[in-house]
């Protein structure tokens, strides 16, 4: 068996502050295969974005990795010197941020930003880069790309800008794209288009995607596998159909009860995950044992004393004593 494209092992990320060392990611492990789309879901503050930033090597100080390893195609990238990592960032791993309105530099034409990225990562002439940029803009669905390439970001709508961002990420033909809530900032009517575009691009090019979202409808539509995060840990990870249809972790079950379809969303449902009573604990007050135990209706003594490991259960892996013991 060949190595998975991305492998995250026992990842631990801490944000030290004056009083304590807050553990934002605690012993998280998962893999993404070539061409696979992994969905990452969980409540706000669960650690989804921090996981993405850790993979990119872009954790905001004082945040830093205090344990675990990240491998791309078998090679460790978390310990790489910055100038080597820079050749992976943007080249082999691309990242799409939440807000396309602010992701593009307002003072440069979009074409210049695309060719700049290409020329930083590959030895290619300005003219060739420009020709490829136009082709890319066409591929992400921008009409009249040979004119739009000279537009400034403010001259494009939100949906168009997110397409440009996708073109920017794709221009170096990355093997993995980390998309952190790529549609949250967009109009509901545009969201489905962008999601469909990401799926099509990934499928056509065989690119792997880690798709971070609040939106279970989106996961159902595009992901192959899904990981449910809670308080910096993975509660359940498995094939999307199984996790969505028959979630095993009580937290995952609660989430799935709250799935709005894209159709329902268009009708006004905001798609946020709100059905489980209570709130996720603050990083400074994560309970002993299973982090979910105070909100869990099925907690037993062991859940309050011992942290459950992520163990195989049916087709998935689940971190719950009720399921795996």
């Amino acid at each position, binding site marked *: 068996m060949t190595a998975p494209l991305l492998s995250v092992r026992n990842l631990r990320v801490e944000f030290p502050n004056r009083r304590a060392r807050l553990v934002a990611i605690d012993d998280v492990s998962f893999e993404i295969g070539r061409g696979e789309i992994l969905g990452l879901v969980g409540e706000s503050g669960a650690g989804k974005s921090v996981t993405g930033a850790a993979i990119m090597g872009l954790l905001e100080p004082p945040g830093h990795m205090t344990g675990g390893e990240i491998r791309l195609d078998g090679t460790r990238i978390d310990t790489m010197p910055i100038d080597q990592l820079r050749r992976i960032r943007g080249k082999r791993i691309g990242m799409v941020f939440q807000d396309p309105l602010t992701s593009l530099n307002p003072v440069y034409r979009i074409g210049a930003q695309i060719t700049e990225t290409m020329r930083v990562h590959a030895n290619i002439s300005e003219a060739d880069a420009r020709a490829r940029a136009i082709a890319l803009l066409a591929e992400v669905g921008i009409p009249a790309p040979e004119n739009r390439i000279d537009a400034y970001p403010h001259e494009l709508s939100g*949906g168009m800008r997110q397409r440009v961002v996708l073109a920017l990420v794709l221009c170096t033909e990355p093997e993995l794209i980390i998309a952190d809530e790529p549609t949250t900032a*967009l109009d509901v009517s545009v969201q489905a288009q962008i999601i469909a575009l990401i799926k099509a691009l990934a499928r056509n090019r065989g690119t792997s995607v880690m798709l971070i979202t609040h939106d279970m409808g989106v996961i159902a539509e595009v992901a192959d596998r899904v990981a449910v995060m809670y308080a910096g840990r993975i509660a359940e990870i498995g094939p999307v159909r199984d996790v969505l249809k028959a979630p095993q972790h009580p937290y995952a079950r609660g989430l799935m009860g709250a799935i709005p379809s894209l159709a329902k969303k268009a009708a006004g449902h905001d798609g946020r995950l709100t059905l489980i009573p209570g709130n996720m604990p603050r990083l400074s007050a994560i309970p002993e044992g299973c982090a979910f135990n105070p909100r869990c209706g099925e907690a037993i003594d062991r859940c309050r004393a011992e942290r459950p490991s992520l163990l195989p259960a049916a087709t998935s892996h689940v971190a719950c004593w009720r399921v795996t013991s």
Partner: protein
Amino acid sequence: MIAYILKSVGQAILVLVVVAALAFSMFRFIGDPVANMAGQEASQQDRRELAERLGLNDPVPIQFARFLANAAFGEFGMSYRQGRKVSALIAERMPATVELAVLSALLATGFGTLLGVYTAIRRNSWGAHIVMGISLIGVSLPTFLIGIGLIYLFAVELKWLPSFGRGETVKLGWWTTGLLTPSGRASLIMPVLTLGFFQLTLIMRLVRAQMLETLRTDYVKFARARGLPESRIQFRHALRNTLVPVVTIAGLQLGSVIAFAIITESVFQWPGLGALFVQAVQFVDIPVMAAYLMFVAVVFVVVNLIVDLTYVLLDPRLKSSTAVVGGGK
């Protein structure tokens, strides 16, 4: 774009007319020009004739129009005190002030931007802490104290630099310059430092704050995620966005360099317009005061105009205020 420029120019003209009205009203409300020019012994007859000759009997709007027309050509009449044409006085004094102000402005913007970027990028380094500490002096010490301190150190104690005057100057047409002689250059050093230091620290702190802000934006994060080299992110992506707001405030500040020049010129006995103005105030020499007022206004307005236009070059969002193109289709 053209509308934007026209609007800027229109505003500039409006400001100048308002200032001209102020200058004009000085003639009418401060002192009596006839008494000033005719002297004590003049007869009633002489006074009436002089008033007639000066056009003081015409309706006010006509007098104002005449004032404007003359001002447009730099004519403000005769100095009460020196009996010479004000335009000649101004032309004689202007090179000293312009040289001083322009050099100070270059010093302030150049080093201000450089140090601002440095202290932002290396914000935890020793160098940055030291620069920030020194800049506190510039912000908090009054200009004249810095000037006197410099004179004490470099002129009195070390005797390296002259403490007053322009040194030897060279005539280039009607312009005189101190830049072409060693003594002229030596004389410029301390006044330029004194006048530029406050602006330098101000611009530096401004650039630093703005740069730190810009380095936190999403497009800088995205640029990092695209794997661009850090130097390119800092100097291409962050700096240009930093300069957009900095240019405005720096521009306004540089206009005030001319105003601050009065103090510096007094400290260093610099033969410039500021010194001329101080004398004019002492002797209620209205035409000279009016001319100086207009000169400062013109400098402010021109600097502002340049700022407005630079803005367009730096920020494409101002160039095309066209509506958003294309929907999310």
